[in-house]
């Protein structure tokens, strides 16, 4: 499939933004200035971006604890995300949510989620809204290999099939749920699970943006056409610990180095588009430079932004009191 140049450039920029956002957080977290838990998405960028390149603001996604990549790919403002992570009143959730709860309903981002398996049921509901309101939208649940074992996830696969919802279930399989390998924790296969619930299954290499884009395009088109849910199984590697501070003693010493060497979606993307003569290196370098500036500005701004006020504590528990 032909992907428009504009889309490609936007996708490259989104992937680079995620990479730099996360690498910067890794550095900033170590200084102790960032409160709470932070789970980095580095290495998995092509999954969020390849899927979301097939979506519009009218479509809905639900994310996970490892949510920064999905947010950026769906169009959440980087500055507002950074401010949120720093607990500032300018944050997308006004400093009340933090890294694990970034949400922006205006761009169809139903939230990162602190509860593993929290997203898939919500996506059944979002898909039901799209279907009932006939707005042409599709709902996409991102969830990990670990989350694929939660009852909520398995029940959602069934419900989506029973209701023939315009939903896509994206299993982001990075081989680990915390410190436990998927080979230990996941019985059977994702493919057989999809078949068990009567839905089509597609898998792809998550370090290849083009593969993800194509597979997701097919899955989303299927759901959008009213033919029911699809499972998309994306194979990935996580480059950092489960959360910041995890020493990763459960992984072979060379595993991350090899993932960085062989499965770097940004390098693979660049090689492919420059070799095909689609872009000059200099165009991509310009993007890199612009993103570097954007992240730098976001961090400086976040550190400088005002803290929430005491009245904020009591605000927004209910719409009406």
């Amino acid at each position, binding site marked *: 499939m032909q992907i428009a140049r504009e889309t490609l450039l936007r996708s490259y920029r989104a992937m680079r933004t995620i990479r730099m956002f996360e690498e910067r957080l890794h550095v900033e977290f170590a200084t102790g200035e960032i*409160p*709470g*838990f932070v789970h980095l998405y580095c290495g998995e960028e092509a999954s969020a971006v390849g899927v979301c390149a097939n979506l519009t603001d009218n479509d809905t996604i639900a994310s996970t604890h490892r949510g920064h990549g999905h947010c950026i790919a769906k169009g959440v403002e980087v500055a507002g995300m950074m401010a949120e992570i720093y*607990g*500032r009143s300018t944050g997308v*959730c006004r*400093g*009340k*949510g*933090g890294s*694990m*709860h970034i949400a922006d309903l205006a761009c169809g981002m139903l939230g990162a*989620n*602190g*509860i*593993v*398996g929290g997203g898939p049921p919500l996506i059944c509901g979002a898909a039901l809204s799209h279907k009932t309101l006939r707005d042409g939208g599709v709902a996409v649940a991102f969830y990990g290999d*670990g*989350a694929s*074992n*939660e*009852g*909520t996830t398995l029940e959602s696969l069934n419900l989506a099939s029973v209701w023939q919802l315009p939903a896509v279930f994206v299993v982001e399989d990075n081989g*680990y*749920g*915390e*410190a*436990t*390998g*998927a*080979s*230990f*924790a*996941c019985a059977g296969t994702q493919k057989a699970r999809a078949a068990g619930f009567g839905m089509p299954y597609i898998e792809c290499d998550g370090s290849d943006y083009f593969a993800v884009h194509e597979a997701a395009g097919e899955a989303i088109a299927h759901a959008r056409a009213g033919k029911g849910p699809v499972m998309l199984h994306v194979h990935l590697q996580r480059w950092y610990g489960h959360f910041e501070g995890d020493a990763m*003693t*459960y*992984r*072979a*010493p060379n*595993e991350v180095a090899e993932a960085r060497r062989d499965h770097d979606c940004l390098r693979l993307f660049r090689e492919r588009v420059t070799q095909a003569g689609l872009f000059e290196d200099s165009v991509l370098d310009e993007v890199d430079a612009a993103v570097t500036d954007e992240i730098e500005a976001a961090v400086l701004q976040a550190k400088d932004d005002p*803290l*929430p006020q*005491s009245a*904020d*504590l*009591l605000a927004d*528990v209910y719409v009406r009191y």
Partner: protein
Amino acid sequence: MSKKSFRQAINEALRQEMRRDPTVILMGEDVAGGRGGSAGTADAWGGVLGVTKGLYEEFGETRVLDTPITEASYIGAAAGAAVTGLRPVAELMFVDFVGCCLDQIMNQAAKFRYMFGGKARTPLVIRAMYGAGFNAAAQHSQALYPLFTHIPGLKVVIPSSPYEAKGLLISAIRDDDPVIFLENKVMYDVEEEVPDEPYAIPFGEANLTREGDDVTIVAFGRMVGMANEAADRLAKKGIGCTVIDPRTTSPLDGETILECVADTGRLVIVDESSPRCNMATDIAALVAEEAFDTLRAPIRRVVPPHTPVPFATVLETLYMPSVEKIEAAVTATMNHRVTEKV
């Protein structure tokens, strides 16, 4: 006797009970950690905060079971194993995750004994972390003990120090009823002298951590330390406080609370759980009903506002009870003047 952290005290209680009784098993997400990992290590984590570290090494995979991320099935499995001969200690990690498995606790484990006409025993312990103070935000910071206390058939334990944690966990494991054992996540590195040998602290027997004549303070878990500090500061101002650590919210040692209130005539309750239908309201009702005539001032509650736990430090600090807030509440009850009715 030696100095041990809250974390070490819990680990030691588990280890000693597992040595004593081969039917005691552990299960939970990454309670060992590393299974299926490319390094081939087991016991990579020993729980997310290292509380069960080393137990896999000693007891092996038949007694320390890593689970997939499936709270409903493994908490339910622990309940099922408990009612059929094992003594499982299941770790739920963050107590907030009870949302994923409440049925197995509330409708299954808690009900067996009564519903089956007294024929079942369910020696199940569910350990979980609770509390705010970590910037862990709304889904990882709740203090849900009132939820469990509300359910007949469950026992609920909230240790306030390393010494308490070891003795209460040993009792929990030996108990034949389902016990929810709640560990404040901010306390794992708190240290104090803890006996090396096993000892059991009975449920339903409150501990007085301070004694004074003017005001009774009831506090739970991490709040006990804050109440002690407030009492020490107030003592310097000439106000004497009795601090009660009930240790368990179910069973609740109402008698000790009523006795102390009879002596002091003033009551402050410190509870970090959401303020509606929490332990503070429960104890206030008990005292209002049973000891109305001994009260010399309105009961005061030091509790968070009725909001989810916010993320940002400034908001989380405002949200939490504190030593200053406890002092202010005690001072307010001392300043209360009864106006005679005409």
